[in-house]
């Protein structure tokens, strides 16, 4: 029991708010800080990259520039930052779709119960019985290999994960006194779901968002690696790993640089997700 959080939590009023405890937690602040830097670099990519990612700036496969040039003589550092931008934008958009649809489905199923609940939970089970990557490959192949389709497919595939978690959480708070209180005060179902229930089940949703982002980055990169995501000349971390594979013997750094960036981002998202779960889930924090 050598944890920072004492087993008997102090009264709610004296406990620091979650965001302040999060900042003091080294795992969360380091991983979160790294992701913040990555997100800033991705947002400002066109401004801060030394060269345009499409331009030949030096001879192919030379050491010019900070990280050298690729097989077309384009600046690897510039492409790496742009590739990170592609991967992060696709992953974030997909997770937003999954979270919004999943949370809505879970809220409605949990609050209304009955056949809505059966439909949502059974639907989630069935969607989860497809191997996600195989279904993503097939769906993107049918819809056409475009990033927009990758976003839609990953988003839809991750809806059940959010729906399930939210559904279970709603069941536990549905009969809480504060929900009854809101109903007695005359709040309608929409208001109760969004204003009363949702804030009280936010913690597991936040954790799931972080972990889903880590999966989405991996799936986007995997699809792009197979040529089904970002199309040239736009780089994604996955297409850069695929390109690096062709030059393993000549210039392994073409593989190693994007590999390190992907691993760092996924690792940071997983550490952040684990840290948030331990912080927000009192049952786990007590250990």
């Amino acid at each position, binding site marked *: 029991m050598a944890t920072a959080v004492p087993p008997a939590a102090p009264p709610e009023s004296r406990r620091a708010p979650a965001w302040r405890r999060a900042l003091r937690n080294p795992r969360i602040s380091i991983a979160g800080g790294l992701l913040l830097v990555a997100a800033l670099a991705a947002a400002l990519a066109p401004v801060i990259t030394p060269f345009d990612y499409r331009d030949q700036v030096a001879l192919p496969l030379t050491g010019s520039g900070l990280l050298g040039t690729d097989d077309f003589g384009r600046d690897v550092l510039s492409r790496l930052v742009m590739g990170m931008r592609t991967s992060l934008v696709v992953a974030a958009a997909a997770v937003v779709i999954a979270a919004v649809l999943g949370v809505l489905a879970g809220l409605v199923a949990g609050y209304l119960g009955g056949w809505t609940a059966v439909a949502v939970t059974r639907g989630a*089970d069935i969607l989860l019985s*497809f191997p996600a990557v*195989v279904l993503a490959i097939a769906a993107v192949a049918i819809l056409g290999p475009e990033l927009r389709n990758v976003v839609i497919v990953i988003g839809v595939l991750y809806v059940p994960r959010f729906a399930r978690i939210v559904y279970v959480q709603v069941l536990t708070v549905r009969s809480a006194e504060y929900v009854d209180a809101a109903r007695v005060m005359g709040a309608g179902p929409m208001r109760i779901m969004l204003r009363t229930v949702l804030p009280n089940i936010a913690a597991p949703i936040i954790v799931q968002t972080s972990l889903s982002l880590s999966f989405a980055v991996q799936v986007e990169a*995997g699809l792009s690696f197979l040529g*089904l995501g970002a199309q040239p000349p736009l780089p994604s971390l996955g297409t850069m*790993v695929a390109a690096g594979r062709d030059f393993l013997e000549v210039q392994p750094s073409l593989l190693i640089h994007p590999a390190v960036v992907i691993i760092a981002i996924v*690792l940071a998202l997983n550490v952040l997700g684990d840290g948030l779960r331990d912080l927000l889930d009192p049952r786990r924090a007590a250990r």
Partner: protein
Amino acid sequence: MSGFLVRRLGLALVQLVVVASLIFLLVRLIPGDAARAVAGEIATKEQVAAIRAEMGLDRPVWGQFLDFWAGLLRGDLGTSLISGREVMLDLPPRVANSLELVLIALALAVLIGVPLGRWAALRADRAGDHLVTGAGILGISLPVFVLGTLLLLVFSLWLPILPPERFVTIGQDPAAHLRALVLPVVTLTAASTAVIARMTRSSMLETLSADYVRTARSKGLAETLVVRRHALRTALIPVVSITGVELATLIGSTVLVETIFGWPGMSSFLMNAVGSRDYPVIQAVVLSTATIVIAVNFAADLVIRALDPRTEAV
């Protein structure tokens, strides 16, 4: 147990029917004309119409749906639009090759992950635990195609212990077959081992503090017996269900891993079909992977049922 078995089998069959129907709809209801996509940009109207007739897409959807099911029940998955061969001739050996990788990787993940997680849980918050926890989070953060490509770089090029080889079947040359197996299996098993070790550890920690484990301790049982007889059995229940989930993940990952190492499983079959929009093949591959996942989840639920003492008597 038999009532449960029947109900669970019924659920698996319903899942199969829904999944197969969804795959049928996925191919047909997606925006865009499948026949035109197959024919290509420069095909004439007549060519597209001929392909549409050949694919059976000119008939009403309900008729196509019934044909699809009649075919499935006969074990007929249709004919490849590109090679003209029956899918059932080419699919089984591919699935077998993929399953070889996936099942070996999954077995290794369980055989390494469960003892590792148990070991870490028994020394919670000590150095060994931190090592396993740290390695675990790194393990789940290595995207499979990145790890595979890096392993290829290190073990085939830098230290040429396992140079890239042409695939041979186990009958042709067992030793070469096993050598070709090593890197893809290691690549696949890394993340699953980490997932299973993490789950075993946290589940063990939970059961070790449960009341019935305290009771077992207080009646004077040796700690090894408490762990083996009382804690581990219950702790394994969530591990079994995550192992079922891991199989679905591994089947997805194997598509990437086979592409990297040139293993002739479902991957090249699927990717060639994707490149040429060979719908019957895409449909068959998705259906067979979903069937495997449903079957394994069914088996996992039976194991959970057998492990869980609370449901034994029912």
